[in-house]
């Protein structure tokens, strides 16, 4: 069974940092699933099948965490003992919130007008803001500016949620 205390980066043989070659993560993920996936043990005994299920689930969880920018940053911070998403943390900056409130209003208006094109444009905007924030986050994490990184993670998570909401709104308008 996979050592459940092993850290995700080590599991995939990656350096413990925010920036890495995503191809390398994908390749390591596939190589691991090739040996742990339950399909490889369908003809094995119960014990081996159970171990495969747990190991494969663990690899999937680790992959998901590292593949996703917010998840990866959060995980890196958690290794430093920082819970980026704890509710006791300081609030988001007022300026950021103000901007997001305006954005939310724009989304609401576009949704009410059933304007899928406008929603798509708003989605592109959020995605581009998120991409810029990700670059900032990467710099802060790789330069070990943990507290600043934590703030960026919180903002990035917020933007991810906004993007999800816009996607849901597009789905609703399209149907």
């Amino acid at each position: 069974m996979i050592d459940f205390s092993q850290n995700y980066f080590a599991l995939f043989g990656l350096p413990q940092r925010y920036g890495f070659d995503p191809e390398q993560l994908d390749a390591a993920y596939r190589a691991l699933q090739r040996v742990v996936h339950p399909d490889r043990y369908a003809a094995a005994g119960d014990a081996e099948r159970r171990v495969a299920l747990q190991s494969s689930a663990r690899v999937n969880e680790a992959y998901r965490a590292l593949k996703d920018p917010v998840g990866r940053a959060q995980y890196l911070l958690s290794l430093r003992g920082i819970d980026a998403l704890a509710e006791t943390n300081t609030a988001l900056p007022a300026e950021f919130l103000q901007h997001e409130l305006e954005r939310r209003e724009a989304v609401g208006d576009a949704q009410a007008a059933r304007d899928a094109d406008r929603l798509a444009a708003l989605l592109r905007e959020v995605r581009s803001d998120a991409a810029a924030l990700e670059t900032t986050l990467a710099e802060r994490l790789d330069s070990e500016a943990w507290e600043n990184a934590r703030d960026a993670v919180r903002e990035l998570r917020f933007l991810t949620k906004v993007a999800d909401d816009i996607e849901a709104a597009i789905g609703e308008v399209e149907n």
Partner: protein
Amino acid sequence: MALLQIAEPDAPPAPHQHRLAVGIDLGTTNSLVATVRHGIPVVLPDAEGRPLLPSIVRYADRGVEVGYPAQDALVVDPQNTIVSVKRLMGRGLADLSDARRFPYRFIDAPGMVQIETRSGIRTPVEVSAEILRTLRLRAEASLGGALAGAVVTVPAYFDDAQRQATKDAAQLAGLNVLRLLNEPTAAAIAYGLDNASEGIYAVYDLGGGTFDLSILKLSRGVFEVLATAGDTALGGDDFDHRVYCWALETSRVGPVSASDTRLVMLKAREAKENLTAHASTPLVATLSTGERIDLTLTAAIFTAITETLVGKTLGPVRKALRDAKRTPGEIDGVVMVGGATRMPQIQKAVATFFGAPPLNNLNPDQVVALGAAIQANVLAGNRARDEDWLLLDVIPLSLGLETMGGLTEKIIPRNATIPIARAQEFTTFKDGQTAMAIHVVQGEREKVADCRSLGRFELRGIPPMVAGAARISVTFQVDADGLLSVSARERTTGVEAAITVKPSYGLADTEIARMLQESQAHAAEDMEARALGEAQVEAERMLAATMSALDADGDLLAPEERAEIDAAMAPVRRLVAGADRHALSAAVAALNRATEEFAARRMDRSVAGVLAGRSVDSLAED
């Protein structure tokens, strides 16, 4: 270098090692069974050479009829001749918006609707089991032996209740379910291995009663599902129904009897199928009342009356693309699956949406069964030496639980790769609270009432504490079949309260046992002999698996550990040819326990091997 490989036809595995395994496509309209013979997947036809089995079950005076004989009674005996039962799987009466379209006498039972037939009350699980049993017997007759196992396909968008119902039906039919496999994924396996494809593919699967759209990445022998979406109540049936409504309205007849409904529905389907090759078709029927329908259905009318249905399939297409974070232009090919994709207006709509003609080079009726057969063959242990592909599928709908205020807290998001396990902590709401109700739901909506309820259970024995002090960890685990189990434990205090449940839908194990007994008696099969046979197959599988594990990694065991496993194998060997099923099962269970630690160490070694030593080259190559 192409990494997608298919076994050489000239080099089949040695016959004595080959385990009989089949893939079954349990369809709304038709079902099929397929197997891999000499490295090539083939559909197994019935004694008359017909590949399809109409998914129709009739409870007749003289017993149960399945397939073509039942089809002949569609019009004369509508109440006892069950079609499209797949639409009822895992569904309560309230879930069926189209219940009035069925001529059956429905009984509203908790969890899943039931049907009153001439032979008594039947659940959709039992009806489906009749279809699956017919396919099992067909396969056994054709392959000349008992099956080691089967892969049964389900729509990718089936929720937990529908999946569990399908698995129950397969077990009831005497099948050892190796895996529930998503239909579009099965099609992708058949297509991808056949064409050595690489890239991002969409599978557009419009069957008789269900619609799925999956986006897959095919890369170096890995089939990775990126996203799936669909509608489990949209299929060819609905197109027939539009034609049926049009025919009645245009002819100004109706309301019509159940028999006449069936008659006109059949004529509607024929007309629909004719329009695949012709620009217009007659639709003629004489009702039992003497009224006559005599119409010409043109392609233009058909396209117009079904336009909204075609449009309805594009919603899930867009959603899956968004979830996969791809645009239509990034899709390398769209594979068409399901008989309903033969309709020209579907072909046209898909081509327009993706800006390229879809791929139709595999038989849309058979491709799912063929893919399932390929997967079954590998899972049964018949993997050829050079056959090294892997399938990574996803869960279609988010799983979560109810929190305060009737809101859903998602624990596992949709399109998460399975298997997956995820835990989340919750706490108590009141001082001194000693029990917690856990309500498991599936769906995307925020309000619990808008999601599908999968089950409720209670965690009891929480030590009394002030509100918010308890730490209750709820773990959701989804296995490779896409089936959920939930466990909960409180762990602040030494006292541990824990529970594990598998949400199940109206069918308790005892009920399955009863049905099994009834159906077996009716099929004149000796249940005890069958159970013994199954135990023997399992014992042989376990012995073979243990032997090969010892051969490969015996060095991981200290001599006394090795002796322990050898000692546990001895009684299995002794009992496997005998008739004492219970003793044999106990010995197999003991062998399983004895090999647990060994299994864990073997997995460790495999994982270590991936990142070090021999696998470094293949990693770098990737």
